[in-house]
């Protein structure tokens, strides 16, 4: 799987927040959504998703509710809270700054440091 990128430490939380912000989802749905929107480029160990979900819930960034899933079974659906939305945009902005900085660094040419 050479086309899959390794997840940077700490980015899983941001990915979950983003996935949940697109609409309520259960655990497996969150996983599928991340894979789908990343075009399969981001690999997440499936079980590791849950401790992250519980941590975000514990911190009040997402909320959960039991409902019926597509296969008509009981499932727990996650939804973004207001603090979660705020946190997501903060982290998104931070991420963009980092990406811009990294891009600038990587695009540097020898002429630039003269």
């Amino acid at each position, binding site marked *: 799987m050479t086309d899959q990128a390794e997840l940077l430490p700490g980015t899983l*939380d941001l990915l979950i927040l983003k996935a949940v912000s697109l609409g309520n989802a259960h*655990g497996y749905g969150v996983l599928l959504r991340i894979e789908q929107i990343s075009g399969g480029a981001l690999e997440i160990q499936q079980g590791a998703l849950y*401790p992250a979900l519980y941590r975000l819930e514990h911190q009040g960034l997402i909320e959960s509710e039991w409902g019926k899933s597509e296969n008509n079974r009981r499932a727990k659906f996650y939804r973004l809270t207001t603090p979660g939305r705020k946190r997501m945009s903060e982290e998104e902005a931070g991420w963009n700054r*980092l990406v811009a900085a990294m891009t600038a660094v990587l695009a540097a040419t020898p002429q630039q440091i003269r």
Partner: protein
Amino acid sequence: MKHRLPGGSGVRGVVARIRSLWRGLLRRRDVEAEMAEEFRHHLELRTDDLIRQGLAPGEAARRARIEFGHVESHKERARAARGLRPFDQLGISWLDVKLGLRMLGKYPGLSLVSVVGMSVAIAIGTGGFGLLRALVYAELPLEEGERVVALQNADPRSPGNPNARAVHDFVRWRDELGSVTDVSAYMTEELPVTVPEGEATVAPVARMTASGFRLTRVDPLMGRVLLEEDEREGASPVVVISYGEWQRRFGADPNVLGRAVRLGRTAHTVVGVMPAGFGFPINHRYWVPLHLDPTAYDVGGGPAITMFGRLAPGVDLAQAQAELSTVGQRMARENPATHEHLRPRVLHYPRAYMGIDNPSRAWMARTAQLVLSLLLVVVAVNVAILVYARTSARMGEITVRSALGASRRRVVTQLFAEALVLSLIAAVIGQSLVFIGFSWFEQRVLQGDTMGLPFWVELGLSPVLVAYVAGLAVLAAVIVGVLPGLKATGKAVQSGLQQLHSGSSRLRLGRMWTALIVTQVAIAVAVLPYALYVAGPSISRGLARPTYPVEEFLRGSLSLEEGRAPAEAAEDDDAELIRFRQSATELVRRLEAEPTITGVVLASEFPGGEGVARVEIEGVGRTGVWLNRIDPDLFPLFEVPILAGRGFADGDATTGSNAVIVDRVFVEEVLGGGDVLGRRVRFAPDAPDVETPWLEIVGVVPEFTVPPVFQPEAPKLYVPRAPTEATGPVQLAVRVGAGAAPVSFVVRLREITESVDPRLHLNELETAATAEDERQQSLLFLALLVVAVTGSVLLLSSAGVYAMMSFTVASRRREIGIRSALGAAPERVLRGVFKRAGMQLAGGAVGGLLLAEAIGRLLGVSLFRGEYAHLPPTVALLVTAIGLLAAWGPARHGLSVPPTEALRGE
């Protein structure tokens, strides 16, 4: 950019965390089940997907499990994510907590006794800790506040009372010290403050060097702080005001700078307002420049000042002390007469304020704290005895649980959790008691004193205090839960298992526990009489009011301030005395001329505040009495009738008179009653070769005041006040005519004093009623404290005796049953049970009486003679009776065991 998400902050984040934790602890099983269901659901969906992708069902399920990873480690990380891990590690579950709560209800007596005892102990421990922290270990809330130090000239001859006539030292230290910067000085004056179109009030004013402001590193809210230029001779008077005064007295006027305010008789211009919370050096509201000119005074003279500074960067207290000592030694060599005995010292600022100026005093403060906290250990040990007794009744349960595989750790953890429930409830109650006490203390201090508490003192709920209470609660839970738990799960479990079938699985009460209870009875018997001896009179004194019309009096302390101006300082001591005498006399004359004033007298003490003096009574010997030197017309002004003989006449006030008056307590307690007129007393000479003149009792008055502190008997001796021997202080009593409130005369009184002589100083001015209220409150508070502590000791010792008896009876249950079955009379059986308890109680009681006598010798009051002689035996009987009563229940219970049941174990 931070990669980690620290989570929701603020109130919502905290609420979410608490809710999640609460749910995790309370509904652990539901949470675990939900987690398992969620994982299962995930695996099913994934398996379905894989089947759709063409895998065989079996292979799809296998793949889904592999992709998911190790379920148990995900669950473990999920628990950690919910903040449950610390609880898992401790092994306390909600079940344990629920069991603890159920135990509270199941043993209400035990719970009540334990909670009451521990609440009082925790309240006392926490209160002591809180006060010490707030007063002694506090840090100044200033930038690098811990580096602000007090500088003193300690006088080993009077500890805690440094020599303050230190203008020369101040200049020297300021100019020579390198390790302390911004050496500053201040003096406090309580002056009437008058704002145009406002009423005058008395406020604490700091006369402070400008360097004092620089040292605090606090910028003014408006305007400027004091500057060196303001200190110059002839500079126009300026004042910096506090935020509170700006709000209250100036209506938060934004244009306050430049406004005039009168402090005493001098008009000052407001040049600055300090920010809220600033009260440096103590809790001052106004700051005016302090002009110190050493050339105006001799060494060792000048006004009384308090000095402070800031440690230079990189310098510690010891280095500063070393340098200061060197400077001090030079000063002592140059001025041996005034400085030979003085020891300059650098001290932690708040500690210096509290008078904790040497290691032994700091050590005393720490010991006091330790003793206060130890009280909880004593109480907890008692509760442990009770819990141990209860644990013995539950040995069957514990044995079965151990047999079913519960580890020792698990059983002990459960007992610990149960104890923690008890101690946490006690902690909450104890902490609440402390806050009630603190707010009362604060109110009282603020009411009685214009200065109030120092600005750095915070008697509130601090995280440290909460942590301390939590620590105490855990300590108590360890003693109460873990100790009996370890003992109960030791060898006893093994033998318990063997005896389980007979239903007699019980613990034994070892010798150590028995000895503990006997000791406890002894302590109760020894301490209770003294507690009653203190509490009883404290309550009655606390409720008593003096017989004179206290609400018509104003009281204050009059003294002559050391001259500040060079011209005044040149006056010699005799001149100072004459000036004080004349000024005081003039003040009295001026006050008597006021229409609202009924009368004015001076005395060495305000009635009720007398100090002890040693006197020799002809034909009786030496004794301590409470002495007051009074103006002749004090008795008429205070409406005190003369019971025998005569009152003082004007002639008695002249030197050479030998007339004294005593009160009824003096007649009865010291002279043994009868006609005492003409009997003679004299002040006990300091040295054998010194003769003091004999004085003759010419009159007897009733007791018309209530002593400020607890004193069993306070014989009073009144001597005419001789012409002033020192430049103060002398106490002023002003009676304001009925119909006028004394408090309304305060400002006028200060104005008159100031106009009579600007150097005549009136301190501690208050209404006599306020002082009375304070006295009553502190006595009642003391009484309440004593009653609470002794009450809980008595309660716990009775409970201890009850527990001990339960043990005794329980361990002899079978024997009692068999003896009853064999036809022994119940009385005989009972006698046997009570014999051992009775012996132990009697042993404790006798030991207690001996201890009481020993305490009496130590304190110098024996309860075995005189009015209170009945107290120790009464208490001994009472404690024994309570013990026997406590024994009655278990004994009766033992007798009621049907013989068949008792024999079943055989």
